[in-house]
């Protein structure tokens, strides 16, 4: 910030939290803009939460409402749990972006609109008869039409770049303006530009200029009279990094590999929103991570099974439709009792559904979606950074119990980001992974007394050749057996083994009073919204308690007790009541659901209203 010109007097206001929504065409770079703002805010010490929301098409036709790509960031000086129900600032690069997102803007909220985007064609595509920037329809907001495209072009004028390239820089102008308005450091973005375009100096120059032009525009123009300051959040001391759920999950697996001494093997087939797990892991070759992009999801999981058989930590990552395809193979893994982690990054369905939208509707599939009695462990991550922890935990359980584990995440936390307090590698508990090598009395299906795990003997071990497979196994020997009593015994063992995992996981923790009128039970990515809603309700003096489940099969052992101490139980889910169903069947409690299936996360306010309603009624 060297070459700033003298500026008109501006005042600075301090805010506790702010929500900004960047929106434009799929090609307008809104995801990038959002990410840069996120990094900068994280480094400024704010807590934050983000929600990228984009169409399934790569570049949907310009100007259409279904082609709008958005990125919402919520940051503040207090703990931030959600990307925000409504936004304070809407940056709209075109009329479609305005049309789609205006309903989320709070009363008197700020609109920054790119005047050049509001062409007659774009207005028509968005369904506006008149230009809303001009017809007074936005009087209820603080409307700022800015010549973003034009000002960007002016700033780059003497660089002699093509008009397309110039136009692509406009998002940096918008970013610069927001940096100005919220007093963010620009250095991280300047660094990013430099490394991103390291072979294209003209683009470094262009984007840097656009960014600074936006920044200076805030300074010099008279439209903007106020800058805002958001103090750093009081976060736990330590080193932080901003992370998305998929990146965190990949790291969790690498950590588990290191801490167990097992090589990591990922079999995967690309699918939204799980592909980033593959992309991340395929970079870590120097961690001896093997990644195999298979011909399909069945190949992906069965190759991972082959690798696990060979002594690797075999994992696979996918989303709903791919998950459905893997289920026959999951049954094999249940039968041959090898470690395997199957990550399901859920998305909107059924069928191809809404590939880029979020949902929590694969819980049934995870618990029940296989032929016959094929029990396994099911875990669910709560936040982006929790994906690290749960990937590590899933691996630990898979190895210790010689079982497949399904780890549920979803599009919302997979792509969303939050500051992550980095663990030190040394602090992570080692995972004991032992290959059995003693041929004396070796039985492939003998079981550990406590865990009921069978021994893991890998090819290459002398004098312990044996055969495993999907036909029913004889107890201990592992030979093929069709014997009725043996079958019953083995079915029971497999179920009991999973049940016993409950001895090895933390008790469920009640956030709030241990008994009362209302208990909320949540799982997965709704953690943030529920936490916010519960906090708000408590502030209003309501007694609401909250249990968030990361362990879904088996449940924590104390869950039953907890449930029976509340008059009402509410289970909010982004599905039609799947955890609800499991809880009701198991504990026979008259829990009720709060369900939303719209491809979107909960808003804290929706939940707050529901809580009010329940505590009133």
């Amino acid at each position, binding site marked *: 910030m060297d070459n700033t010109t003298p500026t008109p007097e501006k005042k600075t206001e301090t805010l506790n939290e702010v929500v900004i929504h960047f929106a434009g065409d799929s090609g307008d770079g809104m995801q990038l803009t959002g990410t840069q703002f996120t990094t900068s805010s994280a480094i400024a010490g704010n807590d934050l939460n983000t929600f990228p929301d984009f169409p399934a098409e790569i570049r949907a036709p310009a100007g259409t409402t279904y082609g709008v790509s958005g990125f919402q960031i919520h940051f503040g000086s207090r703990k931030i749990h959600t990307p925000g129900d409504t936004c304070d600032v809407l940056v709209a690069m075109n009329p479609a972006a305005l049309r789609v997102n205006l309903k989320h803007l709070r009363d008197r909220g700020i609109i920054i609109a790119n005047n050049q985007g509001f062409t007659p064609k774009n207005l028509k595509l968005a369904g506006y008869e008149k230009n809303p920037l001009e017809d007074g329809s936005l009087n209820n907001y603080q409307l700022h039409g800015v010549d973003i495209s034009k000002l960007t072009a002016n700033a780059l004028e003497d660089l002699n770049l093509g008009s397309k390239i110039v136009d692509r820089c406009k998002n940096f102008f918008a970013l610069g303006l927001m940096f100005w308005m919220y007093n963010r450091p620009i250095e991280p973005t300047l660094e990013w530009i430099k490394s991103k375009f390291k072979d294209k100096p003209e683009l470094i120059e262009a984007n840097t200029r656009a960014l600074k032009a936006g920044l200076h525009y805030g300074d010099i123009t008279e439209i903007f009279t106020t800058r805002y300051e958001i103090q750093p959040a009081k976060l736990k001391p330590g080193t932080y*990094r*901003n992370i998305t759920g998929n990146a965190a999950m990949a*790291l969790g697996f690498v950590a588990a590999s290191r801490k167990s001494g097992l*090589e990591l093997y990922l079999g995967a087939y690309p699918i939204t929103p799980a592909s980033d797990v593959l992309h991340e892991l395929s970079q870590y070759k120097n961690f001896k991570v093997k990644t*195999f992009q298979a011909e399909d999801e069945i*190949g992906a999981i069965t190759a991972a099974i082959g690798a696990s*058989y060979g002594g690797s930590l075999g994992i696979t990552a996918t989303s709903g439709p791919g998950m459905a395809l893997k289920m*026959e193979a999951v049954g094999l893994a249940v039968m041959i009792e090898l470690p395997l982690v199957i990550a399901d990054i859920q998305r909107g369905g059924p069928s191809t559904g809404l590939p880029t939208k979020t949902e929590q509707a694969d819980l049934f599939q995870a618990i029940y979606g296989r032929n016959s009695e094929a029990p396994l462990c099911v875990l669910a991550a709560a936040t982006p950074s929790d994906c690290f922890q749960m990937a590590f935990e899933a691996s630990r359980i898979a190895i210790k119990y010689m079982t497949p584990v399904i780890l549920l995440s979803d599009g919302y936390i997979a792509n969303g980001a939050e500051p992550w307090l980095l663990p030190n590698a040394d602090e992570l508990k080692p995972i004991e992974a032992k290959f059995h090598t003693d041929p004396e009395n070796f039985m492939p299906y003998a079981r550990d007394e406590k865990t009921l795990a069978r021994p893991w003997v890998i*090819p290459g071990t002398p004098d312990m050749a044996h055969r495993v497979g999907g036909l029913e196994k004889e107890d201990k020997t592992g030979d093929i057996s069709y014997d009725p009593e043996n079958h019953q015994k083995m079915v029971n063992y497999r179920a009991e083994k999973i049940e016993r995992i409950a001895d090895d996981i933390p008790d469920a923790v009640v956030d709030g009073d241990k008994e009362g009128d209302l208990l909320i039970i949540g799982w997965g990515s709704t953690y943030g919204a529920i936490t916010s809603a519960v906090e708000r309700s408590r502030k209003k003096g309501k007694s609401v308690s909250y249990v968030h489940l990361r362990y879904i099969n088996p449940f924590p052992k104390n869950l039953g007790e907890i449930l029976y101490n509340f008059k009402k139980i509410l289970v909010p889910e982004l599905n039609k009541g799947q955890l609800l169903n499991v809880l009701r069947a198991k504990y026979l409690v008259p829990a009720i659901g709060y369900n939303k299936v719209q491809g979107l996360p909960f808003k804290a306010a929706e939940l707050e209203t529901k809580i009010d309603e329940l505590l009133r009624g």
Partner: protein
Amino acid sequence: MSEAAVKEAKKYTAKDFQSGQDVRWCPGCGDYSILAQTQRVFPDLGIEKKDIVWVSGIGCSSRFPYYMDTYGLHGIHGRAAVIASGLKMARPELSVWVATGDGDLLSIGGNHFIHVCRRNVDIKILLFNNQIYGLTKGQYSPTSEFGKITKSTPWGSIDYPFNPVALALGAECTFVARSLDRNAKHLQSMIKAAAEHTGTAFIEIYQNCNVFNDGAFFHLTEKGQKEENVVFLEHGKPLVFGANSDKGIKLDGFTPKVVNIENGEFSKNDLLVHDENKNDDVLAYILSSMTYDPNLPTPIGIFKKANKPTYDAEMNKQIQKAIEKRGEGDLDKLLHKGETWVVK
């Protein structure tokens, strides 16, 4: 492998490869011979027993691993080739073998088959082709002849059969061969050649299912018939066949024709000479195209043998390269990568 190790491994006999499990195939099934030849030839491969793994899918043939005293994984239907691929990538030092059937490999498993060929994963695939679904009691398979009457096609099947050799060639498999359950010596030599090949090795073995498709290959295996119906492919040798070695295969353009080499019109010198190492696949294709031609003998032997880096080797090379370039991964550094900040 060092010579000492080879010697050490040589200690085995066929018996050492018998797992002691009851063999549960029908009496008379061709699978018995394939098992026996495998057990006979494995001691000669110079591979330690502990390093051998058999992987299979589902079918009569896929029970094979149970009977070999090696490591074994009896998988699910159609997935053996890719389970084996995963294993081989994870453990490139193992010798990984696949036992599979025409339904298992070519029907439900067709996709994994062509992809493993394309990738050239260093696994050996033995296809027990009995041109029928045995274990599910006799439906036609993707290699059954057109018009076949089976339980699922009482009016006759209307599918044209795959030519597995042509399919493997189309998918760029690096080793493609064909053999016969009832020709012990030939089968043994093919298994050995497959073991020696580095890369995906595919052997189609014609196998008699005496319960549901008895005699499908008798014209190729039984005395009095086989002599006229089989031509053995031998590297560098002309294609001669017939009870009295009186016939041969000559190319007419690209088209193979049977000629008599005894009546003076043609001699051995006119015949097509086999070259299993041709670096294009055209000769292999020409030979494979003889398969279902009623006017031509069926080629048995190695159609193609080519050198190409394997997928598993490349994967492990890439890891070495990454370690050389970046140093062995440091978890703490990885966690702290990118933009971090400190809260005090």
